[in-house]
């Protein structure tokens, strides 16, 4: 059971950051829906609800999503329904129920590097960046790779509008369950990027397979071959939802499907 000594809701980022630094055992609260399962003893919980981080702003070059924007706000955003052919909405719209999507925040999901996250998988192939209060801007890939970034505050997610075609696919036992596997594929004028999440480790780009796909004309046979390359390149483990072998098998199928969707 989680224990919190002090719960604070600062009204700006400076105050939030100072509170976060005030104790070694402090933590940021996004929606809090997964943090509540933790057995941590938190000295100061810093809730960002009132720090002005709920927004979706579109510019000519990008769309910026504030860290405290909820999944439901993203799902109902007219901007996100059309951008990237609505792939962000497709990625999140069946996660649990609306009651939980009114709680889950993009910042909470990304900052925590959740392995089961559908959203991180799609953000990876969209070349998204994040802005951290202290560390500044880094790509999501760098953030996932660099575990030394901590005790910081995720301010916003920035997604460039590169005109890429993107697809998202997943396997789950029921429509609103946690995923057994998630895959996302983007095609930016022939440059293919493929990411796989819920392995069950956090999503990762299959670099070699993406390079192979980018340097070959995509046909059904090549897509099948790339799917197998991805399944062999990445590692998979077992958990209560699936065996590693099953994940590996469906990986190649979902990646092939995704590639054919972005032709």
């Amino acid at each position, binding site marked *: 059971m989680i224990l*919190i*000594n*002090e719960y604070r*809701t600062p009204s700006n980022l400076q105050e939030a950051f100072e509170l976060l630094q005030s104790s070694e055992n402090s933590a940021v*609260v996004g929606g809090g*829906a997964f943090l509540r399962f933790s057995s941590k003893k938190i000295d100061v*919980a810093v809730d960002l609800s009132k720090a002005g981080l709920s927004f979706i702003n579109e510019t000519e070059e990008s769309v910026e999503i504030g860290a405290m924007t909820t999944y439901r706000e993203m799902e109902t955003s007219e901007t996100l329904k059309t951008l990237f052919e609505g792939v962000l909405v497709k990625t999140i719209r069946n996660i649990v*129920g*609306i*009651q939980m999507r009114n709680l889950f925040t993009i910042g909470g999901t990304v900052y925590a590097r959740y392995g089961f996250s559908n959203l991180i998988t799609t953000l990876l192939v969209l070349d998204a960046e994040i802005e951290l209060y202290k560390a500044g801007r880094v790509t999501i890939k760098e953030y996932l790779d660099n575990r030394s970034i901590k005790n910081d505050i995720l301010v916003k997610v920035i997604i460039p509008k590169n005109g890429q075609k993107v697809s998202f696919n997943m396997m789950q036992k029921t429509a609103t369950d946690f995923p057994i596997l998630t895959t996302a594929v983007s095609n930016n004028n022939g440059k293919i990027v493929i990411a796989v999440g819920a392995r069950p480790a956090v999503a990762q780009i299959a670099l070699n397979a993406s390079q192979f796909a980018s340097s070959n004309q995509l046909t059904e046979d090549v897509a099948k071959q790339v799917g197998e390359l991805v399944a062999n390149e990445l590692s998979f483990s077992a958990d209560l939802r699936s065996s590693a072998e099953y994940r590996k098998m469906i990986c190649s199928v979902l990646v092939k499907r995704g590639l054919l969707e972005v032709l």
Partner: protein
Amino acid sequence: MNIQVTINGASRTWSIEPHELLLDTLRRYGYLSVKKGCDSGSCGVCTVLINDKPVNSCSIFAAKVDGSNIVTVEGVQAEAEKIGAYMVDEGVDQCGFCSPGFVLTVLGLQKELKNPTEDDILHYLSGNLCRCTGYVGQARAIHKYLKESK
């Protein structure tokens, strides 16, 4: 710590633990229509409206709702009876454990979507589980309620 909320139209100050979940606070203060089911965000029986939005009270820290407007079934009894009657008419109200959550999600839907389609209704209610009945009759009942409540 203390939080200030408006619950079912009444202003209240509650004393809470900083890690306490809203569901436990609500039941401690006597709002027993709010049920504890899965306690992990999956079943929807603990749904309440927070600032008009349906939220699973098992998954939100009580401290987070400081300053918010909360609605439970105790505050919408007339609407609950009406929705319940539509469900009874369709033969889909059995043990009743899921009913408070369903009612509040339907009221949230009513506030958020002006002309919901059948798909919109099913999508909106996908976070409310019922182990007694199927969902076809419930969808029919809710569709009728929404149509006739306009």
